[in-house]
């Protein structure tokens, strides 16, 4: 599946809910399925700056696909990073670099896109893309 089709799938899932509370509950649920980062990678170097809660992300190549794992000490943040990873993980770095992130807006999490929000969604997206750029550079 392309990143875009996964994003559309996520949009469809979220469209079933008509209030914010259900959306947040679903997001928390998705956080539980997050591919967890190994303990040894939970280092200060892997913490994403700009979040009030701690978010660790690790990336490694599996064949020609970039695979992300992550964790957070706050469960809403964990849900947010889980959604991002579901969309981005297991894709070629070039696809990740080119992917747009408008789907965040469409699933009703627009408020989290503001750079002043303490959850650092913007920082998370930036970090995932930076990993993709780094691995793409290696490939080239």
């Amino acid at each position, binding site marked *: 599946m392309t990143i875009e089709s996964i994003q559309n799938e996520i949009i469809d899932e979220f469209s079933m809910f008509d209030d914010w*509370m259900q959306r947040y509950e679903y997001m928390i649920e998705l956080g539980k399925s997050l591919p967890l980062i190994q303990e040894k990678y939970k280092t200060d170097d892997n913490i994403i700056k700009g979040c009030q809660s701690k978010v660790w992300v690790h990336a490694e190549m599996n064949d020609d696909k970039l695979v992300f794992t992550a964790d957070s000490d706050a469960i809403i943040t964990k849900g947010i990073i889980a959604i991002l990873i579901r969309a981005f993980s297991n894709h070629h770095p070039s696809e990740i670099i080119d992917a747009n992130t408008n789907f965040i807006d469409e699933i009703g999490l627009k408020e989290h896109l503001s750079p002043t929000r303490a959850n650092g969604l913007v920082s998370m997206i930036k970090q995932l893309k930076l990993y993709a750029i780094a691995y793409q550079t290696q490939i080239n």
Partner: protein
Amino acid sequence: MQTQTSTYSNFNIKSIRNDFPILSREVNGKPLIYFDNAATSQTPQVVIDAIVDYYQHYNANIHRGVHTLSQEATEAYEASRRKIQHHFNAKHPHEIIFTSGTTHGINMIASSFTSLINKGEVILVSAVEHHSNIVPWQMLCERTGAILEVIPMNTDGELILSEFEELLKKQPKLVAVTHISNALGSIIPIKYIIAKSHEVGAAVLIDGAQACPHLKPDVQDLDADFYVCGAHKICGPTGIGMLYGKEEWLNKLPPYQGGGEMIAEVTFEKTTYAGLPHKFEAGTPNISGGIAFGMALDYMNSIGFENIAKYEQELLVYATKKLLSIDGLKIYGTAKNKTSVISFNVGDIHPYDIGTILDKLGIAVRTGHHCTQPIMDFYNIPGTVRASFSFYNTKEEIDVFVEALKRAVAMLS
């Protein structure tokens, strides 16, 4: 909020709330409940009007203008300085220096002390300080080779005074402590700390940022050498605050910044400085802010600090009791003397998660380390949720908040 009542009869809460236009707005479709007062207070209409009035009628640069507008602005600005003087019971108006806020005042003193502190000399702060009352002193230590020592706290969030007295044996040059802890609400016995510090010849700076919204400090009675606060926590605007300094100290300290306003005479060879307070007020100040600061104090005094303190204590007791009925809720900061600030966590739920859900329900609280990372390290927690109440809050709001919190906890557990 339909039924705003108070059991404290001298207090017309409904009319007070009407003074604050922001309190009638909605957030995320719910009536705003503003419990982030320890970060900044809301602004009554009279203060907003004072700012507007200045820009509409007498906006001009102060002090040197011969024209009418400049004289009116100067008069209003200086009248405000005298109001602040009387409010804090300073001996002279020129002991009140306008600053941009508490942080600015502390930095001013820390910077001016550079030439008065020597290598190896001790500066004393406490374990409950805001970063603003730690970092400027660390920077002073870096510049001079002085040593920073810390008065420890107990698990209730009170300073351990026996340890403080031990530390005084190191003959500190300067003691900088907060009047009230922003993260925990503990009221620090500063009068005692000042008296003891003076016995060993230390100068004392008090960070009054959190105290001034709740009580009326008398700087002469306290015998503080320096007392700093910001207007925005006392119903005034942001970007303005005051530094009180005893005349003899302010005369002794070198100026902090150079520029206009602060000079007597300037040639390229030498500049002589203006007298107090202008020596410390380089450049065009925040004139409307200074004037509005005075108006904010007038407003607070018209309600009366005794009334405010009594009512806020009621809110504190009420909220503490209700919150403690929630399973797994732990309050950080249980000092015997505290103000209307409650820092807490529920089980192992991250404070950020709780803050996010409460915001969705129209409730503003603060989450995180509250610029007091050493306190969070002391308790070994990432942060807390902090609800801080002001005299315009109500018990009904606390009821809504507690129900919302229960809802958040159910979602997040």
